[in-house]
């Protein structure tokens, strides 16, 4: 037995514990030398990435992992369960976290020169919160991590633009607390009627009391709570300000991950705490969700057109994209579900890349107003090319990730007989063209004479590497979507809808 064998059994809990510990140790590392913080975060994130990859691989090859914290067996003890769904989401969290981590070194040095240590400390705690929310199989434990991730996110956002960042953070804090209260109430209700907090256990106990109004109220509370957390229109009001005024690196992290994990939680509660029959047939919650999502898709895109601040535009675009994910989930058929889940991955890649680009442009020029982007194509060719690829993905041009999820979502809508959603999805991609093409025109066209003398002044390498990597993945998964679909999403969708059993 080697040392590695000793820890393999504990990988599920280590993915949470390592960033947690590292987060608390960051001030000490920073006290030795502030420059070390970044290396410390890199080391941690890289370790987390390896562990989550290993977890997902284990799940694909040998089935769901059950880990009992402290050896206490559920339902008494807290259980960590990794199946295809959270194995997949954890890997996304770790990867996006690493990318933003690499990127942050220069951007934080410029934007938050005095807050490097707290930034990295909170950064790791945010990862901890998201990781924990995803990985846990216990709904109260889930709530604890939800609060960790929320509090750290408030802190990160408050570090942003002087004044505005604090206001945005405060708005988010109020909305986020309302959401968390709803969720906590829901958890309390379920605990009151079942006497259990373990997800698997609860799923077994609930069906016999589905006609209980308390259960129904709990479901409603969860849906409202998570809708706020993911920024589902019309509960999105906190989101644009928060994304706009946060520091660049924090925007990318929060936009790439927070709402995705919220969407994950919504899926988990709908299909693993409750059962598909309950949310689809008995309460028709899934159908309600699709209509809300369709509305979000259209309104988010329309509002994005009206923005001139690039980060705010991307924020509204996020509201629309979250709609895609939830639409796919709400369609409640295998194809639509695959589209929604695939879009969690796709949107993380695209939106993170776009926010990183916005940050890089801000880093070099201090400009966020997209009408002042003239000549950027010549000044920052690599950065703007990344923007082009990611934006084309958002539009859903074939050969990029956006197309694959759009294809599945539209096909899923047809399968569900909901032609109106097909039109919503297609019209939304037209709207995406409208708001992204303005940026293209500003970057590359319009003022030929003014840009003749612009010198090339590219973002630093540490910013370029993660951006380019994300752009490459946008194309890679656009062409090779077969792999995530075949190995993860297809069996997963079947399992969630109760058609097949998780391997």
């Amino acid at each position: 037995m080697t040392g590695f064998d000793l820890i393999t059994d504990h990988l599920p809990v280590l993915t949470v514990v390592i960033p947690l510990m590292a987060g608390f140790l960051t001030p000490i590392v920073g006290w030795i030398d502030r420059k070390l913080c970044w290396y410390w975060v890199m080391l941690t994130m890289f370790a987390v990435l390896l562990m989550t990859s290993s977890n997902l691989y284990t799940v694909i090859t040998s089935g769901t992992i059950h880990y009992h914290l402290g050896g206490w067996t559920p339902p008494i003890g807290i259980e960590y369960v990794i199946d295809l769904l959270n194995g997949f989401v954890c890997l996304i969290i770790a990867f996006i976290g690493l990318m933003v981590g690499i990127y942050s070194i220069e951007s934080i040095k410029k934007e938050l020169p005095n807050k490097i240590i707290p930034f990295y400390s909170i950064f790791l705690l945010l990862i901890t919160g998201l990781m924990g929310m995803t990985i846990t199989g216990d709904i109260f434990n889930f709530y604890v991590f939800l609060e960790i991730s929320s509090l750290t996110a408030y802190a990160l956002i408050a570090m942003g633009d002087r004044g505005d960042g604090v206001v945005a953070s405060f708005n988010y804090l109020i909305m986020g607390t309302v959401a968390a209260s709803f969720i906590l109430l829901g958890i309390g209700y379920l605990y009151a009627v079942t006497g259990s907090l373990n997800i698997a256990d609860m799923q077994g106990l609930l069906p016999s009391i589905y006609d209980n109004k308390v259960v129904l109220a709990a479901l409603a509370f969860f849906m409202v709570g998570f809708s706020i957390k993911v920024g589902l229109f019309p509960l999105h009001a906190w989101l644009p300000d928060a994304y706009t005024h946060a520091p660049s690196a924090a925007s990318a992290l929060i936009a790439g991950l927070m709402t995705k994990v919220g969407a994950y939680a919504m899926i988990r509660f709908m299909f693993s705490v409750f059962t598909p029959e309950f949310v689809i047939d008995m309460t028709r919650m899934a159908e309600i969700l699709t209509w809300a999502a369709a509305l979000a898709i259209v309104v988010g895109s329309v509002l994005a057109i009206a923005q001139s601040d690039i980060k705010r535009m991307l924020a509204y675009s996020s509201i629309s994209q979250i709609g895609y994910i939830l639409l796919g989930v709400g369609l409640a058929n295998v194809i639509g579900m695959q589209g929604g889940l695939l879009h969690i991955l796709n949107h993380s890649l695209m939106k993170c890349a776009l926010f990183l680009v916005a940050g890089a442009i801000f880093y070099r020029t201090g400009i966020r107003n997209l009408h002042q982007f003239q000549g950027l194509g010549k000044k920052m060719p690599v950065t703007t090319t990344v923007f082009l690829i990611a934006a084309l993905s958002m539009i859903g041009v074939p050969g990029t990730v956006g197309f694959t999820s759009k294809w599945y979502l539209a096909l899923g809508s047809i399968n569900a007989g909901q032609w109106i959603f097909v039109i919503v999805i297609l019209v939304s991609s037209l709207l995406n063209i409208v708001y992204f093409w303005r940026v293209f025109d500003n970057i590359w066209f319009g003022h030929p004479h003014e840009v003749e003398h612009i010198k090339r002044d590219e973002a630093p390498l540490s910013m370029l590497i993660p951006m380019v990597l994300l752009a490459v993945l946008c194309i890679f998964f656009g062409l090779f979507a077969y792999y995530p679909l075949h190995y993860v999403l297809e069996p997963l969708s079947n399992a969630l809808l109760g058609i097949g059993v998780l391997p």
Partner: protein
Amino acid sequence: MAIETVHSITPALAVLVSMVASVLILAFGKYPNIREGWTFVAAFIKFSLVISMLPLILEGKVITYTVIEMLPNLPIAFKVDAFGILFAITSSFLWIFVSSYSIGYMRTLKEHAQTRYYFCFAIALSSAIGIAFSANLVTLFLFYELLTISTYPLVAHTETSEAISSGRKYLTYLMISGISLLFSILVVYHYTGTTEFSFSGIAGLETLPRTTLYILFITFMVGCAKAAFMPLHAWLPAAMVAPTPVSALLHAVAVVKAGVFTAIRVILYVFGIDLMEISGLWLYMAYFVSITIILASIFAMTQDNLKKRLAYSTVSQLSYVVLGAVLITQHGITGGMLHIPYHGFMKITLFMCAGALIVTAKKENISDMNGIARQMPITMLAFTVGALGMIGMPPAGGYITKWYLLLGAAELDNMILIGVLLISAVLNAAYFFPVIYVAFFKKPDKELTYKEAPLTMLVPLTLTAIISIIIGIWPDAPGMFLDIVNIAVANVTGGGI
């Protein structure tokens, strides 16, 4: 009739060549001669690769290559058949001429952003060949969108507000049509579980309710807005703001032909001849495109800007191609398919002449061209050849395709369609002869001396004019376009080779 299939990577290489070239063009952006060198190298390699597949196709085989399995059951795959190679040969062959012509045009006018221009041009050519070789609708859609995106910078090239707004118009039309095409593809996939082209149409579509089928056909045809059917044609005259080589190759050959190519793929290879006939769609579509044929010719007469007049002429001629295909008789389809390369050669000659006039004489409007033939006799002779071809008069090739189309209409005993073809020929004459008359016989306002465009421009336009005549005189030479078209027609009609 079993068709022998050969697996080969050649079609993928033919598509990739100009993609690779586009990277090299970017890399050598600071050295104009090397940069243009890559364009030439790529054009020659591309044409050689395409032509190397021709012998197999002439033997009646098809070449297939699956690149990747993009989504489960949705591969990106190439399949070269006679119809595909017809379009590919036309585009890749003409790229060689236009490469030379571009150099003369762009350098004489000292255009800005030439690297971007050549880069996008190369990508656009890749997309065109990709469309030609697509084995299924999804692959076709991929390249169809890529073609739209890569040609936008070419349309908006001058970056004036007129160019940008034309570019927006271009994008609006083509993107909306792209969405419509995607919708249609989704519907086909939903009902049949496949998007792969088949010589007899995709099996399973015939079970659709008639109304669904009609709606599907309409959304498909809206999706083919690159074919510039009226009323979806407005982007094409707007796109004339682009540099003339772009108008010549892309908006007379690659892009618009991609549109009609897609339309024919849909009509004959997705719906299939039988379904078109049973559903009666062929006749509706024939009347629909007849309107475009006539109206566009009338619009062309009102244009004073030579490039815009040519653009409306293109709108009209494109509908000939589709008309041929929807006649669903052997002669009709032959005429329609054959019109793709024939119109390509003739129209590119006309556009290159128009570009030569802009560069050398600085004239865009027909009313300013009095006696211009005294200054540029070779250019105007080439123009005359192209114009005769458009009208359908020998020796240029146009009369052959019109003859086939007339035969096709006559076989159906449809007097309306025969009338449309004849009236259109008259209208063509009515808007081309004035140009020739003005150029050759009107007295110039001031004395003109002989001054032709640079050789890099003059040689290509002369060559395409000569080829236009050759394909008119020897249309049935072995391995020529008619041979290829015959095989393509045999494929879809189920006849022997």
